[in-house]
């Protein structure tokens, strides 16, 4: 069977289906003896109690940070754990049907969830997810197993098939026998996709109900370049794909030969080439592909991957390692960019009507100043160890960048008082990803030491199109003169103030945009490491002067219909 989905991460994999969902939810029915009823019920009560304790500990961590009204979301969880319909009925089932607690609980849970799904109201329908999330936690306590995927148990040559995969799941794949992954939902510029490309894991998404159809152990081919998935391929297809895989790998190797050569245009203009990373382990890959710095270190992955908030020392150690490994090159660390689609277990956020335009990024950091201050202190301390720069995400106006600088000054004074060394001249840049900031780039460039354009968000805010929504994908138009004008204005404004401009969105790694970005005078391209050779090759064969003519014409609309 051939399925056509959306290409998420290039490369070809040939392997066998490993179904993530089924592995996580296997509940067996087991009959129990009358004298086992009591112990079974107390085992269930203990699991519920452990879950409650777990929720309370998570709640405590954020209670101080969020207002009391918002923390009532935790009360909701706790009340569900005392809910008669869920708890008492489960106990009744154990007693009356003489079945094990796992089976009774999952029966009752599914009953409630299906009730929720019948509701027409979207808000209430969504609550089914809260209930099932809570159920998952109770179940993991019951079964006394780690809630997380048991990565070590996955057989070699597996292709992970799931409804959806989180960026942190993706980070585990490289070292755990996983050749590729296939998901029902997801978008080309989602963070899962970004991590998959960085780790060179082929992936295809948008396959609707594939995770339900796919049989565990079934032979599968994933073509991450064309977005094709083939199950039970015939011999000829396998041979063709093996050949294709070889061709792809050879091509990658030939591009890698470019790694030590500088990114200089045919007429002698040098461009900066840097890598975007999420985890310290990616540094080796970044250097191997020829990155001359880290243009974007997404620090929030440290937070996403942990249940507890990493403390100042833990963060300091991580930042220090990255800086030391990259010496003499610069490392630009972006402060926590949480909220919206990137939720951490440690920083649980209340649901919002419109999260993409809500409390996220630097806005969230201002709301939870203790967490932000801790990170700033860790960054300042690590600035001693290498060429560290700080960048602030989602700046919307000048006063935000001023506010950040005030917080940084406070942290510096604290450290000074404590006698802790740091680099007093550490640079602070602003991410330009909100149209308001792009239009006021000249004002922001006065306060910030450098600018970096985050195109993923900038595009979706400019065109009012959700990048994850397949139905409006066509409006999310990267090659629109409106966007190019915005980018050109940002670059020109920064240059007038003698500040440099990088671009760290997906666009930097898209060969279709290299020429126009060169032509608009961009200083640095920052992208996932694997894209570096490809982009470098284009820069090395393009004339900067010609690129400028091309950009001028493009911006004037000469190529638009």
């Amino acid at each position, binding site marked *: 069977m051939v399925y056509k989905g959306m290409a998420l991460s290039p490369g070809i994999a040939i392997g066998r289906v490993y179904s993530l969902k089924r592995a996580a939810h296997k509940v067996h029915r087991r009959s129990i003896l009358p004298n086992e009823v009591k112990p079974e019920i107390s085992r269930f009560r203990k699991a519920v109690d452990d879950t409650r304790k777990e929720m309370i500990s998570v709640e405590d961590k954020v209670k101080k940070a969020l207002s009391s009204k918002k923390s009532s979301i935790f009360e*909701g969880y706790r*009340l569900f754990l005392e809910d008669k319909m*869920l708890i008492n009925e489960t106990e009744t089932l154990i007693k009356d049907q003489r079945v094990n607690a796992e089976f009774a609980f999952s029966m009752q849970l599914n009953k409630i969830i299906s009730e929720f799904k019948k509701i027409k109201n979207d808000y209430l329908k969504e609550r089914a997810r809260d209930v099932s999330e809570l159920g998952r936690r109770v179940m993991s306590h019951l079964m006394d197993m780690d809630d997380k995927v048991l990565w070590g148990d996955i057989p070699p040559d597996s292709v992970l098939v799931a409804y959806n995969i989180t960026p942190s799941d993706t980070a585990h794949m490289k070292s755990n026998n996983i050749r590729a992954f296939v998901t029902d939902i997801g978008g080309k510029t989602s963070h899962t996709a970004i991590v998959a490309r960085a780790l060179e894991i082929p992936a295809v998404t948008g396959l609707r109900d594939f995770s339900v159809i796919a049989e565990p152990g079934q032979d599968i081919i994933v073509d991450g370049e064309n977005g094709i998935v083939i199950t039970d391929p015939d011999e000829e297809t396998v041979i063709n794909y093996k050949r294709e895989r070889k061709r792809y790998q050879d091509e990658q190797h030939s591009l890698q030969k470019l790694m030590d050569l500088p990114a200089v245009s045919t007429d002698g203009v040098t461009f900066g080439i840097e890598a975007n990373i999420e985890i310290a382990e990616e540094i080796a890959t970044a250097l191997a592909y020829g990155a001359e710095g880290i243009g974007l270190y997404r620090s929030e992955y440290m937070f996403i991957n942990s249940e507890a908030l990493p403390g100042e020392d833990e963060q300091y150690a991580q930042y220090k390692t990255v800086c030391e490994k990259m010496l003499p090159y610069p490392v630009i660390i972006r402060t926590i960019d949480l909220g919206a689609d990137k939720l951490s277990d440690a920083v649980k956020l209340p649901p919002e009507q419109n999260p993409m335009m809500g409390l996220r990024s630097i806005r969230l950091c201002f709301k939870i100043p203790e967490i932000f201050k801790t990170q700033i202190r860790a960054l300042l301390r690590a600035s001693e160890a290498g060429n560290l720069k700080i960048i602030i995400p989602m700046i919307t106006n000048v006063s935000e960048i001023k506010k950040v600088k005030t917080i940084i000054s406070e942290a510096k004074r604290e450290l000074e008082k404590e006698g802790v060394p740091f680099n007093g001249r550490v640079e602070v840049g602003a991410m330009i990803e909100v149209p308001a900031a792009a239009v006021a780039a000249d004002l922001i460039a006065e306060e910030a030491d450098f600018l970096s354009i985050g195109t993923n968000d900038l595009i979706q805010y400019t065109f009012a199109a959700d990048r994850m929504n397949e139905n409006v994908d066509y409006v999310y138009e990267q090659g629109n003169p409106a966007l190019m004008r915005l980018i050109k204005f940002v670059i020109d404004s920064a240059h007038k103030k003698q500040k440099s401009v990088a671009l760290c969105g997906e666009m930097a790694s898209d060969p279709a945009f290299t020429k126009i970005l060169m032509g608009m005078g961009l200083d640095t391209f920052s992208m996932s490491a694997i894209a570096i050779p490809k982009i470098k090759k284009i820069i090395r064969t393009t004339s900067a002067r010609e690129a400028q003519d091309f950009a001028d014409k493009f911006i004037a609309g000469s190529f638009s219909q």
Partner: protein
Amino acid sequence: MHVRTALTISKLSEKFESKLFIGKDGEEISFDSPLGLLTLGISKGDEISVRIQGADSLELARAFDKLVEENFGE
């Protein structure tokens, strides 16, 4: 109905001996299960029935009335 509203009502009914039942489209749920309440799928503008039974039913009814007037503390 918002989770918060379900909790507010649930907390209120805990303070009284009487039992509070809420119904929609012929289905009725006791208020000691906020989950059950949510599964009724009550949306703005829906007609619902409220039934209170027990020794201090009058007091609970008054308190519930007050809560409705205050728009459930929203």
